């Protein structure tokens, strides 16, 4: 309860400083709108705002899911095969070292203005941390447990399912926490470069029409969306409680 009041007071103060700071300084709306003007613009365009939010949310979710599957697969491959470690991993690292924003226009060329190019951008941004977290998690499986499983005559699949995967989960979850906000950034970047829908599109559209209040409303929605998705991952991560527990 005390924590709730603390948080409430803090955010109210931030909102008030924004609102009255803008009003008293006489800053014009197209430069920096007051909070009330942002809400007003958002409410007036609520149909559009909601539709664009859903578009972006869907891009982020599917992009994240694909990044998870691909990242896990590549992480596993690299962990299990020396050849993959010497070939696939450098390729992935090179891809990661490339400024991904520079690739975004190409994605539009390859996948068009629609959903597919945003999906590709979200995957591209999100999947590297998942690869690294998978490799790190699997490499951290205690040797004594590996030997114990060997002594018990465990099949490779059993060793993976009962030992390696659960032992790697804490690290993997950390990777997901980094990847989730990156998936949001990927989708927005994709929408910036070329799109007909989504919050990124709305931001570009509103800003270029000097509708700064609407632009801010869209930015707030992106923030809320990213926090909700991050919160979901964080909630799941609490079921992996054995981080750092050694017996």
């Amino acid at each position: 309860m005390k924590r709730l009041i603390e948080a409430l007071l803090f955010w109210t103060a931030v909102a008030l400083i924004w609102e009255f700071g803008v009003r008293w300084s006489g800053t014009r709306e197209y430069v920096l709108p007051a909070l009330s003007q942002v809400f007003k613009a958002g409410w007036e365009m609520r149909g559009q705002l909601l539709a664009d939010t859903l578009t972006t949310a869907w891009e982020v979710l599917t992009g994240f899911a694909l990044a998870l599957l691909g990242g896990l697969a590549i992480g596993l491959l690299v962990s299990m095969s020396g050849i993959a470690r010497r070939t696939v991993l450098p390729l992935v690292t090179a891809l990661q070292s490339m400024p991904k924003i520079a690739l975004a226009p190409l994605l539009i060329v390859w996948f068009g203005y629609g959903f597919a190019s945003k999906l590709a951008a979200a995957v591209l941004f999100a999947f590297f941390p998942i690869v690294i977290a998978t490799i790190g998690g699997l490499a951290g499986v205690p040797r004594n447990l590996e030997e114990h499983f060997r002594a018990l005559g465990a099949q490779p699949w059993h060793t993976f399912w009962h030992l390696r995967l659960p032992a790697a989960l804490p690290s993997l979850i950390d990777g997901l926490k980094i990847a989730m906000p990156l998936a949001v950034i990927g989708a927005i970047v994709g929408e910036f470069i070329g799109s007909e829908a989504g919050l990124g599109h709305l931001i570009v559209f509103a800003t270029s029409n000097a509708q700064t209040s609407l632009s801010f409303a869209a930015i707030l929605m992106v923030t809320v969306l990213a926090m909700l998705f991050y919160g979901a991952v964080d909630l799941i991560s609490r079921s992996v409680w054995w981080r750092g527990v050694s017996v």
Partner: protein
Amino acid sequence: MALAHSMQAARQPIAADAQHHPLSGGATADAMISVEQVGKRFGARGGAEAFSALDDVSMQIRSREFVSILGPSGCGKSTLLRMVAGLVPCDTGRILVDQTPIKAPVPEIGVVFQTSNLLPWLTVEANIRLGAKLRNLPRAQIAARLPGLLETLGLTQFADRYPHELSGGMRQRAAIGQILLLEPKVMLMDEPFGALDALTRDRLNVELLRIWQHSTLTVLLVTHSIHEAVFLSDRVLVMSERPGKVLHDVTIDLPRPREPGEIKSNPRYGEYVTELSKMMGVF
């Protein structure tokens, strides 16, 4: 089968002879574990030079015997145990368990390590079941044996707890339970109580002895506690410094069942401890 049986019967006198000369080498028909001229070298790696860990080690352990290997740190006794378990290959010689050459881990053998090796994300009961699950033992069979086993180990009230909520002694009991549930013929133990305090260690020794007494287990225990070795064993094998060799084979002729109070006040117990201490170079 009948032939094998009669051959075994015919060999009985020879086997009995080998019992008195366990270092004589050569397989005996009733040996549960037969280690024959085994050697192990570890190759040079990085700055480290190649060295010989074990050199021409032989030993015969009969079915249902309790044998301890005593030796200084680094003498290769843990390596030897891992070789018997099929976890480390022999460079020379061979190891037979229940007449079968060991090349990989087999279901007849269960290994208890110094670390309990329990999985932190499984309850005590799930951990004890884990080995049986990995070996695909029938569920009904596991379910039938589990309650009695938990009772024997004093873990019934802790079945639903997680390992980190238990004391080190309790964890080691659970680790032993995981192996007992598999009903192996041979239990190999690598300093299973080495990380425990003296009191817990003594208590677990008594319990281990009781469990062994009521089973058909053959136990090979690696330890560097002389008292533990004398209290538990039928025979104690003393190993040399690296490269490890079996220097002495001491039969512990103390009555069974052994009660700690009774045995430790027995003058022969003290004599064995003194003798082994001398062999180990303690004094």
